[in-house]
């Protein structure tokens, strides 16, 4: 039997999806602002962070209310745990997008050697793919998709390390680059973190669907 209050769970699910969509969009726009030197767009990304924060707050409230009133168990209870955790990851993704946009504005005020950006679009693409796949695994309830995301953050990590070395070289070669390249170090790190959050969400979805820890299941993978 489906009870009337089960719709409240659907509502929480859909708010998490909405939040995921907003977070993905923010990351994409932050990247675009950097590549196209678009200050307006950077401002827009920073403003939209409030919307993402508000959805997280709303999800928190809904979860506390549901737990208080509905005595959830089993998968319903896991969904609520996951909603709290994944919405926190998505809120962090929104923060990273906002950080990227803020640093982009600083960079645009001073110019940047073209090489400094070279690896970033690839990092962004990988991070966004991971994020989209983790959200899709949630929406479509595909544990195999969630499972497949593990390990995909390694390439982003590698790119971030390479980027760092390259940026250090650029700073050494011309001290005029130091300030903009420092911003790029942080931007690169932000993309790496976004990939980490995507991986966290995948783990959370896997737990939701299987009641198992993905870390334990993939130990040694």
């Amino acid at each position: 039997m489906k009870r009337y209050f089960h719709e409240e769970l659907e509502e929480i699910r859909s708010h998490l999806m909405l939040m995921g969509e907003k977070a993905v969009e923010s990351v994409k726009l932050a990247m675009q602002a950097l590549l196209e030197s678009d200050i307006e767009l950077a401002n827009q990304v920073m403003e939209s962070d409030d919307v993402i924060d508000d959805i997280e707050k709303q999800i928190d409230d809904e979860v506390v209310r549901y737990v208080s009133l509905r005595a959830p168990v089993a998968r319903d209870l896991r969904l609520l745990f996951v909603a709290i955790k994944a919405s926190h990851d998505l809120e962090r993704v929104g923060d990273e997008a906002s950080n990227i946009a803020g640093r982009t504005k600083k960079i645009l005020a001073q110019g940047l050697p073209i090489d400094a950006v070279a690896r970033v679009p690839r990092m962004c693409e990988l991070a966004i793919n991971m994020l989209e796949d983790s959200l899709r695994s949630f929406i479509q309830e595909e544990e195999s998709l969630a499972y497949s995301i593990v390990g995909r953050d390694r390439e982003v990590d590698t790119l971030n390390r390479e980027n760092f070395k390259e940026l250090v070289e650029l700073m050494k070669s011309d001290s005029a680059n130091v300030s903009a390249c420092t911003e790029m170090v942080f931007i690169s790190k932000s993309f790496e973190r976004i990939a980490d959050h995507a991986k966290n969400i995948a783990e959370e979805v896997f737990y939701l669907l299987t009641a198992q820890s993905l870390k334990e299941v993939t130990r040694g993978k």
Partner: protein
Amino acid sequence: MSLVTDKIISKPKIETRDLGLEMTENNRSLIEISNFDFFYGEKQALFDVSMDIKEREVTAFIGPSGCGKSTLLRCINRMNDLIEVARIGSGKITVNGVDIYDDRVDTIELRKRVGMVFQKSNPFPKSIYENVVYGLRIQGITRKSKLDEAVERCLKGAALWEEVKDRLDTSGLSLSGGQQQRLCIARALAVEPDILLMDEPCSALDPVATAKVEELIHTLKDRYTIVIVTHNMQQAARVSDRTAFFYLGKLIEMNATDQIFMSPDKEQTEAYISGRFG
């Protein structure tokens, strides 16, 4: 990411979410209880109880056994008149603005407006059909078409129609416990009350039958004002909009149900709902 978008669009927009609290503020008070003291002989059962019960909401009374929940419920339709030693000390109860303990109040009419469903379902040893139309026959209604219409409407209203429509002539006592309780609700609905008082309506039912009655309560609140006494706190949390917590004949705290269960104002309430009582 169109996938996400597709799913979202079919959902209500986030801003329009109604936690139920907004509505609550606007509903008018249908029942007002003020400074109400009540005695059984020398023993005082209710102490200075004041509360407003809102129209078209479900209000739950919770509290340990013997704290006066049923007593107060029975005061709302003057069922306590039937108990010899019962008497009001002071205070009053109004329904729709009318002081129900005024001498001019017709208690038969009052109990039509304020129906009651008891803990133990008590169908009469008559057919399902006759159980539903019982109150109407007392009112002198005999026209078959009118009675037929009421039977269908009330059994549908009580979410029982589909289960019994082919055997309306069989005894009400042949139904399962959960069905009997819904039959009693249908019987209460037949006289078209505004208010339904329910005293532990699910305490004798299994979880599935309980869920059905709870679902029914949820649908009935669109049209009726419901007051439910329950010893099951989870049930209060599930079905009610407002919750009143009683202890030793006193109203300790009354508030929106989510407020009561998420952050009650009074320590006693918190101790009771979290099982740290006594």
